[in-house]
C-alpha cells in the first residue's frame, strides 16, 4: 500500500509540476517571486472560470425560476458537470496515458497492474474533482442565496460533486484501454498529442458555443426560460438514464428526508463501485498496452532509393537558412510545441469568431452598439484590427521559448564554429514568420467583421507587424536572459514556461494600452502609423545589435 501511495504522489507531482511549491523552505527569493507570478496567473484563470461558472449558473437559475422549477437547477448542473468532466477527463486521460517514458521505468518495477492504473486514475480524477467542486459550489451558492435550503443540502452537494466525476472517468478508460490495445498506430506520443489536440479544440469550441449562447441571453430572462423549457425533457430523460445525476438531484431536493440518505448512499456505492470495478477489470490490459509505446516507424530504403534520397537531401545551404530550417523542423516535429505555439494563431481567431457570432444578435440589438458601429468608421475598428493582428502575431510563444526549447541541443550547438548571434537571429526569423502570419490573420478577420476598407486594413497590418515584432524581440530577449533548460518533458519548455506567460500577458498589457490610447485620444491615422508603426520598427532595429551582443555574451556564460 505504501508503494501505491508514493505512486499516486509521483503522478500528481509530474502532472502539475508541483515540486517548486512543495518545499517552500528551500526557496530563494527569485523563486518565491516566480511562484508568486505563477500563483497570480493561476488566480487570473480561476477568476475567469469563476466568472464563467457564476454566469452559467445564474442563467440556468433565472431561466428555471421563471418557470417555478428552480429545484431542477441541480439536475441541470449535475448533467453539465458530467458532460464537462467527461470531455475534459477523456482528454486528460488520453494525454496522460503514457507520460514521456515514465511508464517505461515503472513497468520494470514489481508493481501490481491495478496500482499503476489506479494511481493514474486518482491523479486525473483530482483535477476533475476540482472542476466539479467549483461548479457545484457556485450552483449551491446561487441556489442557497435565493432559496435558503437546509444544511444537509450542502452535504449532499459536496458529496455529489466528489462522486460525479468518477463514472465519466471510468467510462473514459473503458474507451481508451481497448482503443489503445487494438489500435497500434495510436500507441505513439505524436498520434496521441495530435488526437487530443484536435479533440480539445473541438470541445473548446463546443463549450464556447454552449456557454456563449447561454450568456448572450443573460439580459433576457424570457429567452432563458424558453431555452431551459426546451431542454427540460432531455434533461429529465438523461437523469432517468444516468443514475448518479438523478440520485444527486433527488437527494438535494428533499435533503432532510430518509430518501435523501438512501439516495446518497446508493450514489456513493454506484460511483465508487464502477470506478473500482473498472480499474480492476482494465488494469491488465492497460499495463499491456503500455508496452511498446513510442515505437518509431523506421523504413529502410533500398540501395538505389538511398542514393536518390541522399542526393536530394545533401545540398549546401547558407548557414542562416540551415539554422532557420532546423528551428522549423524542431518545432513542427514536437506536437506539444505545435499545439501550444503556432496553433494558437488558428485557435484564437476561431474562438473569437464563435463569440462574435453567438453574441452578434445581442450586440446589434444593444443601442450602445450603434455608437460603436458608428465609431468603427472613424478609425476605431482599425485600431482593434491592429491590436488583434499584433496579439495573434506575438501569441505563438515561439520567441519566448526559443532558447528553452533548445536545451537538449545547446551544448552540441555551442561546440560548433557558429556565430551565436546568428544562431539566435535564426530563432527571431522563425518567430517573425509567425508574426507575419498572425498579423495577416488577425487584421483580415477584424477587417472583415467591421468591413474596413483596404487602406485602413493595410495601415492596421503595418502597425500589427511592427508591434508584434517589437514584442517578439522582447520575448526572445527574456528567454535569452532566463531560459528554462533543466527539463525532461517538452511540456515544461513550452506550456509551463513562465517566459511565454510573461510574454503573452505583456503583449496584452501593451496592446491594451495602445488601443485605449489610440481610441481615447482619437489619434489620426498618420500619427498612429508614426507612433505604432514606424516607432516600434525603429526601436526593434536599434535594439537588435545590443541584443546580439547580449546574446553572444549570455550564451558563452551558460553552464551546460
Amino acid at each position, binding site marked *: 500500500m505504501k508503494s501505491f501511495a508514493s505512486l499516486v504522489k509521483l503522478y500528481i507531482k509530474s502532472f502539475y509540476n508541483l515540486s517548486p511549491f512543495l518545499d517552500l523552505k528551500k526557496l530563494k527569493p527569485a523563486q518565491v517571486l516566480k511562484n508568486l507570478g505563477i500563483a497570480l496567473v493561476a488566480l487570473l484563470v480561476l477568476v475567469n472560470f469563476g466568472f464563467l461558472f457564476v454566469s452559467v449558473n445564474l442563467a440556468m437559475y433565472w431561466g428555471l425560476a421563471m418557470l417555478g422549477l428552480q429545484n431542477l437547477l441541480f439536475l441541470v448542473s449535475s448533467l453539465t458537470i458530467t458532460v464537462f468532466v467527461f470531455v475534459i477527463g477523456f482528454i486528460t486521460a488520453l494525454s496522460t496515458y503514457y507520460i514521456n517514458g515514465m511508464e517505461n521505468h515503472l513497468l520494470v518495477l514489481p508493481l501490481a497492474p491495478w496500482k499503476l492504473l489506479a494511481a493514474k486514475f486518482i491523479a486525473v480524477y483530482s483535477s476533475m474533482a476540482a472542476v466539479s467542486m467549483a461548479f457545484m459550489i457556485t450552483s449551491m451558492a446561487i441556489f442557497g442565496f435565493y432559496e435558503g435550503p437546509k444544511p444537509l443540502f450542502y452535504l449532499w452537494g459536496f458529496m455529489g460533486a466528489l462522486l460525479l466525476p468518477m463514472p465519466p472517468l471510468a467510462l473514459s478508460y473503458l474507451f481508451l484501454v481497448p482503443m489503445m490495445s487494438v489500435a497500434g498506430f495510436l500507441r505513439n506520443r505524436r498520434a496521441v498529442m495530435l488526437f487530443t489536440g484536435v479533440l480539445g479544440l473541438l470541445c473548446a469550441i463546443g463549450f464556447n458555443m454552449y456557454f456563449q449562447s447561454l450568456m448572450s441571453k443573460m439580459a433576457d430572462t424570457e429567452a432563458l426560460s424558453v431555452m431551459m423549457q426546451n431542454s427540460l425533457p432531455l434533461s429529465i430523460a438523461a437523469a432517468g438514464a444516468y443514475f448518479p445525476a438523478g440520485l444527486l438531484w433527488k437527494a438535494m431536493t428533499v435533503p432532510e428526508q430518509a430518501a435523501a440518505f438512501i439516495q446518497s448512499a446508493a450514489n456513493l456505492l454506484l460511483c465508487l463501485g464502477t470506478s473500482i470495478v473498472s480499474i480492476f477489470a482494465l488494469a491488465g490490459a492497460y499495463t499491456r498496452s503500455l508496452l511498446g509505446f513510442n515505437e518509431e516507424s523506421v523504413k529502410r530504403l533500398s540501395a538505389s532509393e538511398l542514393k536518390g534520397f541522399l*542526393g536530394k537531401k*545533401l545540398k549546401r545551404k547558407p548557414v542562416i537558412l540551415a539554422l532557420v530550417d532546423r528551428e522549423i523542423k524542431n518545432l513542427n516535429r514536437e506536437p506539444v510545441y505545435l499545439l501550444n505555439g503556432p496553433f494558437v494563431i488558428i485557435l484564437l481567431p476561431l474562438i473569437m469568431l464563435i463569440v462574435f457570432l453567438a453574441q452578434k444578435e445581442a450586440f446589434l440589438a444593444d443601442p450602445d452598439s450603434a455608437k460603436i458601429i458608428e465609431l468603427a468608421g472613424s478609425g476605431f475598428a482599425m485600431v482593434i484590427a491592429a491590436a488583434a493582428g499584433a496579439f495573434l502575431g506575438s501569441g505563438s510563444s515561439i520567441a519566448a521559448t526559443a532558447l528553452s526549447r533548445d536545451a537538449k541541443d545547446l551544448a552540441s550547438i*555551442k*561546440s*560548433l564554429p557558429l556565430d551565436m548571434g546568428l544562431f539566435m537571429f535564426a530563432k527571431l526569423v522563425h518567430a517573425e514568420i509567425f508574426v507575419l502570419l498572425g498579423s495577416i490573420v488577425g487584421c483580415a478577420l477584424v477587417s472583415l467583421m467591421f468591413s474596413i476598407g483596404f487602406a485602413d486594413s493595410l495601415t492596421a497590418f503595418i502597425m500589427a507587424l511592427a508591434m508584434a515584432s517589437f514584442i517578439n524581440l522582447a520575448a526572445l530577449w527574456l528567454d535569452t536572459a532566463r531560459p528554462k533548460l533543466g527539463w525532461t518533458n517538452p511540456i515544461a519548455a513550452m506550456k509551463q514556461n513562465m517566459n511565454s506567460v510573461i510574454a503573452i500577458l505583456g503583449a496584452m498589457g501593451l496592446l491594451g494600452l495602445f488601443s485605449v490610447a489610440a481610441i481615447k485620444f482619437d489619434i489620426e491615422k498618420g500619427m498612429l502609423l508614426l507612433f505604432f508603426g514606424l516607432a516600434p520598427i525603429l526601436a526593434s532595429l536599434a535594439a537588435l545589435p545590443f541584443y546580439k551582443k547580449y546574446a553572444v555574451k549570455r550564451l558563452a556564460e551558460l553552464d551546460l
Partner: protein
Amino acid sequence: MIELIAVSKTYAGSNIKAVDGLSLKISDGEIFGFLGPNGAGKTTSLKILTGVLKADSGQAMVDGTDVSLDPIAAKSRIGYVSDNPEAFAKLKAVEYLNFIADVYGLDSEQRHKRINDYSSRFEIRDALSSSLASFSRGMKQKLFIVASLLPDPQNWVLDEPMVGLDPKAAFALKSIMRNRADSGKTVFFSTHVMEVAERLCDKLAIINKGKIIFIGSFQELKKLEGEDTSLETLFLELTEKSGELAGNGDAVL
C-alpha cells in the same frame, strides 16, 4: 595542437572545482588519452576546450587560437564528439549531417563523399533516412563520430567515444585515430577503457578531482612507478594514492 593552460572551472551553484588549474599540451601527430575516475573533470575540460563552457580562469588554445577570444576560428579547427546522446533527436540522420556540413561550409561534393565514406565504414549508411529518435545508443555514437569527421578537422576531440560501439566500429574508430595522427593531426579523447589507452595512446593524462596526477607516455608511467605492469593496475594505484594525498592538496607530477 591543443593547449590548456591553468584552466579552472567551478559550475554555477556548486562549491567544488570541477577542474582545478589544469594544464596540458598535445602536439600535432599525437594521440592523447585522457583518463580519470567518474566525476574527475574530463568532460568539463573537453567542454571548455570546445567552447561549450567558459573557464573561470586559464586559457584553452587550439592551434594557437584562444577559444574564448576567437571562438569561431578555434572551433572550426575542432571536430568534437560529445558525451550527450540526446542531442538533435528531432532530426533525421541525414538532416543532422547536412546541418553540420552547412555549419562548416562544406561544398556539396565534399559532403557527399565524406558522408558516404564514413557512414559506410561505420555501417550506418542504410539508416541515414531514419530519425535520430529511432537510433540505438551505438548507432547514435557512430553518427556523432561521422559528423565530427565531416570537416576533416585538424583536432579531433572525443568524449568517451567507445561507449556503445560494436567491435567492428571500435576497430574502425581506432584505426582512423591512428591514421589521422600519422598524418600530423591531433587526437584527444577521454576513455575508461584501459586496454585501448595502453595500446593506442602516444601520451596519457590521468586526472583526479580536477587535477592532473600524471602526464606522459605509458612507458614513463611504468618507469615512474617502478613496476612493469598493466595500465589498469597503475591507474588504480595512482588514483588511490592521489585520493589519499588530496587532503594536503599536492599532486604527484
